[in-house]
């Protein structure tokens, strides 16, 4: 007995962290994210030297920064994805509280960098945009509320999360930052949908939106002009949109060649909002389709994995994170191909920007943490729900 215990290798409780992480992580999504990061660096090499030249900096200044931020983001993503959902939730709530306070203090301490909207804290070497960090935090908190609301005797979580969303939207529209505000609302809506929004309510809401749109179109000349301008077939080639569309056409299927693109010289936002145009021009449709496929794989795979999830909180939080991530990419690319009206939004992991990259790393890390495979009682499903 003694020799049986003594001298043996101490048995650890549970598996070692890394192997278990590797076994349970969604490797497809992980590789897609890493590839996106790589493409971001590659496109940064193409798109940012003109900006650096304009600002009188070293040609690869922005690429270096992008690499540093990207490395940080990936590290953060790995660390977060190794956490357990409970730990993620606890940290996310703390992060949410911090970033919410930061957001609330923006009008006093923030700076607008001469762009007209107070969205940033200037830290000297870099700037921080609290709303980028607030988004994943909010999604987790809202999912927690909703899941708690589903317990017997739980708080009215859906109402609380809606109130929270509206407060955040109010703060964001103050800046003003309608893009982030609509993303927050969208994430809440998606989570509410998955948490079981009543069908009638959704039909009423949809018809209300359609009706409101018609009323606005026929009563507001400004609104009608915006919509008409968006619907009209030809686009003024001297606008950013016109240049972007042209760049996509110029690129064709295989691109004009590395470094041969012209659009980056004329578009001030070539490295952020219109980076897909740079990709299309230099590397052609092939590269763009690869990028789209990467985003689609991440989003659709995450959603499919969440379908099997038993825990309501994990399911809702994961859905919110995946959809916010996907929609942001969709809007960015949809604008460039004129499927959507103009709205400045970055392409997650590809566009240049410190806050956006690191916050994206956190969000995707959380998503990976939530989509890790866990025992879900599959056998019970197979055997026909006897295990209850």
């Amino acid at each position: 007995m003694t020799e049986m215990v003594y001298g043996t290798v101490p048995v650890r409780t549970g598996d070692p962290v890394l192997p278990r992480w590797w076994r349970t992580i969604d490797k497809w999504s992980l590789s897609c994210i890493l590839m996106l990061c790589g493409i971001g660096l590659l496109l940064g090499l193409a798109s940012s030297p003109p900006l650096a030249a304009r600002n009188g900096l070293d040609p690869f200044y922005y690429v270096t920064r992008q690499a540093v931020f990207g490395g940080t983001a990936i590290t953060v993503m790995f660390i977060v994805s190794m956490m357990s959902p409970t730990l993620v939730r606890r940290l996310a709530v703390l992060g949410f509280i911090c970033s919410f306070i930061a957001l609330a203090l923006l009008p006093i301490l923030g700076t607008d960098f001469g762009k007209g909207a107070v969205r940033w804290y200037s830290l000297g070497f870099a700037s921080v945009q609290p709303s980028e960090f607030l988004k994943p935090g909010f999604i987790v908190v809202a999912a927690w509320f909703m899941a708690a609301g589903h317990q017997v005797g739980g708080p009215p979580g859906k109402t609380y999360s809606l109130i929270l969303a509206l407060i955040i939207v109010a703060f964001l529209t103050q800046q003003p930052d309608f893009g982030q505000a609509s993303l927050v609302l969208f994430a809440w809506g998606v989570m509410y949908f998955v948490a079981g929004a009543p069908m009638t309510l959704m039909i009423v809401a949809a018809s209300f939106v359609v009706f409101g749109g018609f009323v606005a179109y026929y009563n507001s000349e400004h609104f009608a002009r915006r919509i008409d301008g968006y619907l009209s077939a030809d686009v003024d080639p001297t606008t950013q949109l016109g240049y972007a569309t042209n760049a996509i056409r110029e690129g064709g299927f295989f691109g004009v060649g590395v470094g041969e693109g012209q659009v980056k010289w004329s578009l001030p936002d070539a490295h952020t909002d219109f980076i897909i145009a740079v990709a299309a021009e230099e590397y052609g449709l092939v590269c763009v389709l690869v990028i789209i496929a990467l985003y689609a794989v991440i989003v659709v795979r995450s959603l499919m994995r969440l379908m099997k999830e038993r825990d309501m909180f994990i399911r809702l939080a994961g859905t919110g994170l995946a959809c916010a991530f996907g929609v942001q990419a969709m809007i960015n690319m949809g604008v460039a191909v004129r499927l959507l009206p103009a709205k400045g939004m970055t392409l997650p992991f590809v566009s240049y920007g410190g806050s956006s990259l690191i916050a994206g790393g956190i969000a995707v890390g959380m998503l990976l943490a939530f989509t890790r495979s866990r025992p879900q009682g599959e056998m019970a499903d197979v055997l026909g729900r006897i295990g209850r």
Partner: protein
Amino acid sequence: MIGTLRRPLRPLARILKARDRGENTEEIERENLRLRHEEMRDRARARAEGRLLILGLAFFMAFGTIGLRMGVLASTDAEEPRASVSGNPIIGQRADIVDRNGRILATNFETHALYAQPPQMIDPHYAAAQLVDIFPELDHDRLVRDFTGERRFLWVRRQISPEQMQAVHDIGEPGLLFGPREMRLYPNGPIAAHIMGGASYGREGVDAAEVIGVAGLERHFDDLLRDPANEGAPLELSIDLTIQSTMEEVLNNGMTLMNAAGAAAVMMDIHTGEIVAMASLPDFDPNNRPRPLTSGDQADSPLFNRALQGVYELGSVFKIFTVAQAMELGLVNANTMIDTEGPLEWGRFRIRDFHDYGDELSTTDVIVRSSNIGTARIALMIGEARQRDFLERLGFLEATPVEMVEGPTGQPITPRNWSEISTMTISYGHGLSVSPLHLAAGYASLLNGGTLVEPTLLRQDGPQNGPRIVSESVSRRSVEMLRAVVERGTASLGEVAGYEVGGKTGTADKPRPQGGYYDDRVIATFAGVFPASEPQYVFVVTLDEPIETSGDEPRRTAGWTAVPVAAEMIRRTAPLLGLRPSVELGTLSNVTVTSSE
């Protein structure tokens, strides 16, 4: 049914049983709660499964659409970015304006505008110095400030000549650039200036500028002239450039000769209402349109169109309307004797004649001698209502419908209270102020056989055939009376051999701005028709404050001032209008025919 009813009851039953046995029920309650949660979780999961599938499909389709759209875009050809494609392009082409024979009255001319882009400049100081040499009116310091400051774009000159353009080229400064410009050009200078009006630039871009009409026809037909759908088809006017030019020359000389402050003349086709020529002096050059007066009376500005905008009490020229209406109503005929014993007293008013014409005159002679008293008595027979109605039908109570933006400003001034005394004074042209163009249109309507014509500046295809004003015979009689005025009456200087001019003089005292009338300032008018045997054209010549000083005492009456000017005008324009003079052939009685046989 029973199963679903019983199941919720069962836990409670277990609890009650346990309580009876005195056991701790908490564990059972927790167990019950866990079971309920599990059931809810499974239900929620089943529902969420479907909804997540929907979401996943939606995202997949959205990404697919974007990919497709990218593919469509990538497979189409790129187009060169061009500013001119922008939403509302500036259309530089403006249609020409031509006269009735196709001679150009207004056209466009290629020129250039000079602008600067300071960021592209190499040596702003040198460029500024050189520019001031070429354009002395530019301010050197200001240019230097503009070229070296923050500005990225500025206009230097709106229009430059080819020589100036070459000189600017020679500076060799890449930051000085030229934009093509269309310039409106009136090759005839001041001829028909008031009709043309003028044009200037509207919206301006680097590559083009909008030419917009600012007055006259150019303004009235602005949309039509700029409409690309017309494909540059010129606007054809009723104006005849030679007649217009002759009229202006004669009128200008006449104005000098008669020492008049201003003059206006209209010549109109009696059947079609086409204004063949219309002039107002003093005039201006529409290529370099003067600024409107900022103080004083706008009527003193050369921009003021006396023929259209100037409303005057035109005097005795109106008598023919009174007589024609009385004939139309059957109140008088050409030979009815009218009491002309003066003065005619009516309340506190007295109506006098220029000379004493005795106790009575025939209706024809009332016109020939221009008797105010006789006309006033005829007007009394007609009465206020009928007179007013007649003048309204002739268009004397509204602004003329002519196609010029200034048209509505020629609004007649009518008496506030159309009393009997108004009727009497209006019958000989006092108390109602109309423009010379009104008068010409009224004469045309009365004398063309009696149908209404409205004045127009556009070329017409045929007679207007408006509603009937008077019968043909009354129209004929009226022409005969006007012919008699020239043959043996107040307008004897108006005889033009071969063209049978008929017309009526009018000399009206000018009203003082303070009220009452000047003694020594008149508006002298001669309005008429030619040739009398087959009327084709009506004309109106109006001189403002003329004095004819060749005689012993200064003469102001129209017979001595407006009539000779009109006669000279007809003498010169009638052949140009293609009218054949009716020549009295000598008898052949004293011609002997000889024969060699």
